[in-house]
């Protein structure tokens, strides 16, 4: 059993701050949406805007960090092993088979994670940020230029929000599918993860 450093300090800070902000955005956003009552509408509106700004700033830092460190490549989808990763979740995991793709510091994400996270980063986050800030600044049709009202922006924003909720739920569950139930969680907290021992040398 070896303990390998997987997540840097910034990555962990980024992850947990992002988690808090997104949870806050989801709760306040869906209160605004009329789904439930949480903090009260007005408080939720104020919290949502503040959290939106915080999320924007954090995202800018994250992009900066990714570009500087080159870690952005972690999120680029790969073709190999997509099928075997799917098969692992569908059957292998029930048969105590090993993870098909070895997790290393150089490749932290499995092929499915790469696709999903890439989608979040390239699609859902930008859509939420762009529609969110449009929502914030252009809520009326005449100033400074004409959007056909708020509806398209709001509906897109809501769609993105639903996708994020689904992601968060799945994510909560899937972090329990590491080497042990909590090994993924521990890694994101301490930065170190106990990885599966190499049974044979990786082929790729």
């Amino acid at each position, binding site marked *: 059993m070896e303990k390998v450093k997987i997540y840097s300090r910034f990555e962990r*800070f980024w992850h947990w701050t992002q988690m808090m902000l997104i949870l806050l955005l989801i709760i306040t956003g869906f209160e605004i949406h009329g789904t439930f009552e949480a903090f009260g509408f007005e408080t939720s509106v104020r919290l949502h805007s503040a959290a939106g700004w915080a999320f924007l700033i954090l995202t800018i830092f994250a992009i900066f960090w990714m570009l500087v460190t080159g870690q952005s490549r972690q999120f680029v989808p790969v073709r190999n092993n997509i099928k075997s990763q799917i098969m692992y979740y569908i059957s292998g995991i029930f048969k105590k088979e090993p993870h098909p793709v070895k997790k290393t510091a150089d490749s932290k994400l499995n092929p499915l994670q790469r696709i999903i996270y890439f989608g979040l980063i390239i699609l859902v986050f930008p859509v939420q940020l762009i529609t969110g800030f449009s929502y914030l600044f252009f809520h009326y049709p005449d100033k400074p230029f004409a959007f056909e009202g708020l509806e398209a922006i709001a509906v897109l924003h809501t769609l993105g929000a639903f996708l994020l909720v689904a992601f968060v739920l799945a994510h909560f569950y899937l972090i329990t599918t590491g080497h042990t139930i909590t090994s993924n969680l521990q890694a994101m907290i*301490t930065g170190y993860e106990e990885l599966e021992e190499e049974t044979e040398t990786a082929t790729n």
Partner: protein
Amino acid sequence: MKNQFSKSVMALLVSLLLPLAVLLLTLKVAAHKGTPDVVDVKLKAEHISSVDHSQFEILQQDFETPHDVTAACLSCHTGRDEEIMSTAHWKWEREEEIPGRGVVSVGKKNLLNNFCTGANGNNGSCMRCHIGLGWKDKSFDFADNRNIDCLVCHDQTDTYFKQKGQGGMPATAETANSAYQVPDYPYVAQNVGLPKKNNCGICHFYGGGGNNVKHGDLEEALLSCTKEVDVHMAMDGPDMACIDCHTTERHNIMGKLYSVSSANTNRIHCDQCHTTTPHNDKVLDNHFEKVACQTCHIPIYAKANATKLYWDWSSAGLTDEHGNGYSEDDADGNHNYLSIKGNFVWDDHVKPEYYWFNGTVDHYLSTDTISEVPVKINSLFGEYRDSTAKIWPVKVHRGKQIYDTENNTLISLKLWAAEKGEGAFWKDFDWDTAARLGMEYNDRPYSGNYDFIASEVYWPINHMVSPKEETLSCTECHSRDGRLAQLNDFYLPGRDYNKTVDYAGFGLIFMTLIGIVAHFFGRIVAYFKNR
């Protein structure tokens, strides 16, 4: 060991404390709320007159008539007569442009409504609220400045009144009775001043034949009310007079009633005193763009006495066994039936209805024919896409009134006369005669065939601003079935959503949960099997 310790501290810091710090900072930013502006204006009540009218010899004479008083006023206040005679208070009409219809001259003189249908022809009663002396019929001379009634607006003694049924004249030696005595003209004339609340209120509170009948937000309770009723006019508040907002220059009084004026000019706006960003708070101040101040700050109107919301003329005219009219009251003691007027619905503490309004208004003109039911006595222009329109609170007075079934026009009725037998409906209860005489007086054709038709008139609400604690909260509008449920030409956060996206979204969440539970269950089973 030391290495292990510092790693734990670092983990605590980057994975918990720093993210928490960001979260707390976010909460702190979100908690920031601006402090509203405090308004400091000089009230007219603080105005000190530069002269003492009681010292003027010309006001110390034994005036025979109110006309002589007017002449005395004008002998010093030269040119004021021309100012007065060019106002709508004098002419009861003004030239205004109705968008899409051009310039028309509209006012109380020629417009119809669904209260008493119209003033013209019922002069003895209705023209009591004209600022002239005795507009009893068409012979009234609008060019004679001695016909101006200076005192009704400038009396400070509360002893000068126009007599009922006299078309705007105070009691004379011939007409005086126990209710109306001849005014003490020297006393009144020597004590004139700027109009007080009750100078304005004596007419503007009682439109439609009783207190608060018409406006709903303008009534005698404002003479001495608490902040709960009206923060501006409250005795326990700034105790403002009408003219503090309805500022006046050369007898041209700011503000005009939406049900009788079309153009968006000479209106009063809250930001005259309060600025366009009064809350000093972005979220709230942003609303100024699309929401009238009144909408949130007048959550209910008719806060003291009830106002009329519905008036059905078609049931009027029933008499008792002696052929006399009678009345019935509702549980609150308001009339709900009068033989002379029909059935009413009154209510107090009324929630307004809400409409887009850009300040311009269309009217049913006396030359119009009916094109829709209910007939719109006036209609407020505006929609979401109109950059000048805002959401306004509105009193809608609905009714059923008499119309000419052949000419397809609303009928001007002759309602009032001093005596029986002159054909007035209120004395003789004869629809046909009252309709014929009323239309005749107004030079409008009448076919002899009549029925009753539903109609609506829109009165934007402006007065009875509530204390800030009672301001509408967000979810009064930003919720599924809020106050704006009927105003559907735009997307309102908290009220609106896209059905497809919501079904798909909740469906996705549901499927995800099912998947998680199933997978988890599979893992548990596998765990025990593989043991």
